[in-house]
């Protein structure tokens, strides 16, 4: 136990730096995944059929390929085609894209739960499609989708560990480097696990707060 405390004292500064990168990665990829998720959902409900096919196609393809393979593609293959991204950007784009299809499914479910009468009320008030989405469908759909979006957020936080494979110095990679150089595998991985857990708890709390604030009565 004393060994563990000593290790914790020695390793935590490095691991916390890694955790900082993990959180940055999570926030950036989350924002991108939600923005892209909205795009897939709006395209999926477009009147112009090719938009719907494209949305369906992207979701099918992205969902069917492991995240780690997508990251390798973006980081190792795109440079061959002239697109050389720094690791962090590649990680944000890869995770954001991979998670956008889950967010699209979350949002699609939430939007499906929006009362048809409210959409008609917007139409009757003269809203065009853009205003209807911005003022009625997305804000209400988002509320319905919040529990599942929150769940996806926690999964994304943990899956940022995959970005360790493309040299991003986030929590898992910092830990691996420590473990390799010190052989204190037990302490290092226990600390990593505790830090991920500690980071996920406030996320769950955040979702609960948002749900309460978004309550409709």
């Amino acid at each position, binding site marked *: 136990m004393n060994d563990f405390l000593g290790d914790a004292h020695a390793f935590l500064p490095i691991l916390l730096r890694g955790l900082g990168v993990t959180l940055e990665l999570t926030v950036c990829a989350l924002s991108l995944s939600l923005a892209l998720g909205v795009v897939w959902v709006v395209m999926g409900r477009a009147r112009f059929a090719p938009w719907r096919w494209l949305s369906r196609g992207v979701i099918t393809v992205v969902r069917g390929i492991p995240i780690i393979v997508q990251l390798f593609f973006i980081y190792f293959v795109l440079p061959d085609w002239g697109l050389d991204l720094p690791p962090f950007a590649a990680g944000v784009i890869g995770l954001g894209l991979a998670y956008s299809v889950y967010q699209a499914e979350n949002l699609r479910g939430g939007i499906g739960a929006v009362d048809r009468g409210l959409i008609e009320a917007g139409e*009757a008030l003269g809203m065009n499609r853009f205003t209807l989405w911005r*003022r009625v469908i997305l804000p209400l759909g988002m509320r319905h989708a919040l529990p599942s979006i929150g769940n996806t957020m926690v999964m994304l936080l943990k899956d940022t560990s995959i970005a360790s494979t493309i040299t991003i110095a986030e929590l898992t990679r910092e830990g691996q480097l420590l473990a390799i150089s010190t052989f204190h595998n037990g302490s290092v991985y226990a600390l990593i696990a505790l830090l991920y857990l500690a980071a996920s708890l406030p996320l769950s709390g955040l979702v609960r707060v948002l749900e309460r604030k978004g309550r409709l009565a």
Partner: protein
Amino acid sequence: MITLRGVTKRFGARAVLKGVDLDVARGEVLCLIGGSGSGKSTILRCINGLERHDAGTIHVDGTLVDDAGLPAIRRRVAMVFQRFNLFPHRTVLENVFEAPVHVHHEPLAQARARAIDLLARVDMADHADSLPGALSGGQQQRVGIARALALRPDAILFDEPTSALDPERVGEVLRVMRELAEEGMTMLIVTHEIDFARGVADKVAFVDQGVIAEQGKADDILTHPKAARTAQFLARVLHRG
């Protein structure tokens, strides 16, 4: 002001409207009565394009109801819904200035001031900052009427505005509607409130199986119906209690 000629509408295999002719003059209050499934709500919903009619023509002040005409028509013709359909994520006040600000781009301060006046008019000024979910049905419907008035409409379509209300809440909504009628608002009202129709409507049209079976002065239709099915319908609704 609102003119329907030979309007038809099918939902799949079911013909809901089978050639509806109807005229509503400016300043007139016309009540549409009829059994459920007769097509009276569909008539309203075709006028502001919530449903697209299949054949026939609908004009509002000379503007044809089609894709090109709808934006102008929705600006002039407001709607009040059976289930209120207030936006649950916005306060009462925000519901009322939603269209002026976010559809017609009026300055916020001006739209807000007018929304407060409109809420006072339907006696809901005290609830301006409440969310709709915290209100009774009658209160929500009065906000719905204020939201419709915020468009400065030439006409308002009422789709069974009191059918979802507790009986003791019906009167407060009908009172607001009666005031609007007295001020000369053009109103097309789908309703089961026969006494209200008798007291307020200039004209009544009885809708049955997708056509206007009979129309005329409110008193004539409601007291001395000519068509047998009108008489049967009235006997049913007037003696239900």
